[in-house]
């Protein structure tokens, strides 16, 4: 087995707030192999974005506390000084955000913004950098790249702006691209174009991708492996097929069941997950999902570890339910997977 490119161990991130200590990320561990696409899924506030931003060293501040380890090719990034992080950010790992309008500087031309980033890291002339910028814009599918490099962000459509953001993120040929909800603000036909672009970059250049999303359709389209987060913790990780066809954690069942489908028989009623996620300030002990879980029992008052409980060693979950009983518990009367009260 080759060494993982990125290795995250027991990552904890908390923020001091007026209401108390908010535990945003609570013991997250995963490995990322070169060339794979990992998708982190979960709902707002589950800690998926904080995890991603911490990898990039973007969550620092007087009120933030960290522990654990983030290693890139063996080099520890958590707690590394600014100089080290600056040499990593953009160069080895870069990030694309949800809203391309607020992530681009509105008063500078698109091409110049890419040139600035290249010249901050590389000793090249403006002319060379601009040639590279045009090449990148062309590669991500901006038509008339030489011309459009002279445009301002407001002259681009949403999809084109996201392409420009991706071009910028790739300008220094990073090994890892972290994309935080890159298509959430886009229309579905434009989303399909951007997902196709990410798949192509992964296929043709071996780009390693961490894609953060709440949309299981997007996950199914692009991921090799999936990590499901709930209330600051990883509750299940596995391959794409393991998560979609043999999900182990009841929260994963609930997520899969609550996606309204565009095909197959229309359901009489959409499966729903009752209640809402717990507060992250002083969360209750034990399994964080137990108050919303119809299968919870006495043991759930204790925190289950993230372990492989079945026969597949890479498929981990955080649930006390008997592994052999789970397939029956997750089956809805419609034949689909979902979260329902046991009859």
């Amino acid at each position, binding site marked *: 087995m080759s060494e993982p490119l990125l290795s995250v161990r027991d990552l904890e991130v908390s923020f001091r707030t007026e209401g108390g200590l908010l535990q945003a990320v609570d013991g997250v561990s995963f490995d990322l192999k070169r060339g794979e696409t990992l998708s982190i899924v979960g709902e707002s506030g589950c800690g998926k974005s904080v995890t991603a931003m911490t990898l990039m060293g973007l969550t620092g501040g007087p009120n933030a506390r960290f522990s654990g380890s983030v290693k890139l090719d063996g080099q520890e990034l958590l707690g590394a000084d600014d100089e080290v992080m600056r040499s990593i950010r953009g160069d080895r790992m870069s990030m694309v955000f949800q809203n391309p309008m607020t992530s681009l500087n509105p008063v500078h031309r698109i091409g110049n913004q890419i040139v600035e980033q290249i010249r901050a890291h590389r000793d090249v002339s403006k002319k060379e950098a601009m040639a590279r910028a045009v090449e990148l814009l062309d590669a991500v599918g901006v038509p008339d790249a030489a011309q459009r490099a002279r445009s301002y962000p407001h002259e681009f459509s949403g999809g084109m702006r996201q392409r420009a953001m991706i071009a910028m993120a790739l300008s220094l040929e990073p090994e890892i691209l972290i994309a935080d909800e890159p298509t959430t603000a886009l229309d579905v036909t434009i989303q399909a174009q951007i997902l196709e672009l990410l798949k192509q970059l992964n296929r043709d250049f071996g780009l390693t991708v961490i894609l953060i999303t709440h949309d299981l359709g997007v996950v199914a389209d692009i991921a090799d492996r999936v990590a499901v987060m709930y209330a600051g913790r990883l509750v299940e990780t596995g391959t794409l097929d393991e998560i979609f066809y043999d999900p182990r954690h009841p929260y994963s069942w609930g997520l899969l069941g609550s996606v309204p489908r*565009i095909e197959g028989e229309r359901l009489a009623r959409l499966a729903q997950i009752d209640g809402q996620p717990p507060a992250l300030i002083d969360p209750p002990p034990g399994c964080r999902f137990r108050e919303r879980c119809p299968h919870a029992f006495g043991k759930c008052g204790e925190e289950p570890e993230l372990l492989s409980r079945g026969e597949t060693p890479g498929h981990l979950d955080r649930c006390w339910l008997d592994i052999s009983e789970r397939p029956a518990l997750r089956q809805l009367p419609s034949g689909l997977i979902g979260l329902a009260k046991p009859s």
Partner: protein
Amino acid sequence: MTDALAKLDSPALDEPLMEVQSLNKHFPLPGGSLFGKNKGAVRAVDGVSFALRKGETLGLVGESGCGKSTLARSLLQLLRPSSGSVKFRGVELTELSSKKLRPLRRDMQMIFQDPYTSLNPRKRVGHIIGEPLRIHGLAEGAELERRVREKLDQVGLSGDYYGRYPHEFSGGQRQRIGIARALAPEPSLIVADEPVSALDVSIQGQIVNLMADLQRDLDLTYLFVAHDLGVVRQVSDRIAVMYVGKIVEIGPAESVYTNPIHPYTASLLAAVPIPDPRANEARERNPLEGDVPSPSDPPPGCRFHTRCPFADEICEQEEPPLVDYGNGHFAACHHPLGRTPRGTG
């Protein structure tokens, strides 16, 4: 399923609650003239006609900027249409003064997208939900409070929330408050503009199911505006698809989803990734190229021709009319998918 079909067939449903004819809403651009021949205006809604039947849910879908929210607001006269007709229970709304509209507004309510900005942060929940009752003089004092508590109960919130402020609630709970406010004056029509798109997927299910229950119990008619095709299918009896200010296809939900006629509808459906990796792999995607054209300068002929894989000369020149393909399924296309094109007259 069977329920939805039975509903469609029942004759009482054919009685339209709202009828829309050739509706336009154009926003003049600075410097341009509204009276110039369609120059210098954003044609957000451009010649839209349809009927809303009593008791049905019509889902209105389309990409951002297609005019679906403008259409929703123009129907309720929150935006005054530039021309065309909107009849509600047989009464022409576009000719009524604001004053004369007011009593009718009780019967047509709206649910908004963002539960954070659509509730007044300075007012208590009881006040927010009771406001339409006060405005329309429907109740006051103890009776008003009783009715507000009844609405709280109907949307699954505790009566204890009466005296609380919106910031004390989560997004899903706030959306329930927004729904309770819309229900308070006991309307027959509710226009919901992206009511679940700001919510997490596990909460979306709760709100969609709640709206379905309320429709059944209170005999409501919904116009459900959304861009999420899965959500729209789940709630709708019929679907209308908009593209650059026009309805390009309208018909029974299952017919539109399983046998779309307009290539735009087909591409829209094909672009949605489905949460099943193997089925997703097997699907033909052929993503649409390019972007939606600007409604201030729509392409001539069929507005979709710039992105359509089937477009030819006629599509660039002639605007296709909305044609009936049977079973209430209409589409505006010169090259209808899987159907024989019908003469244009």
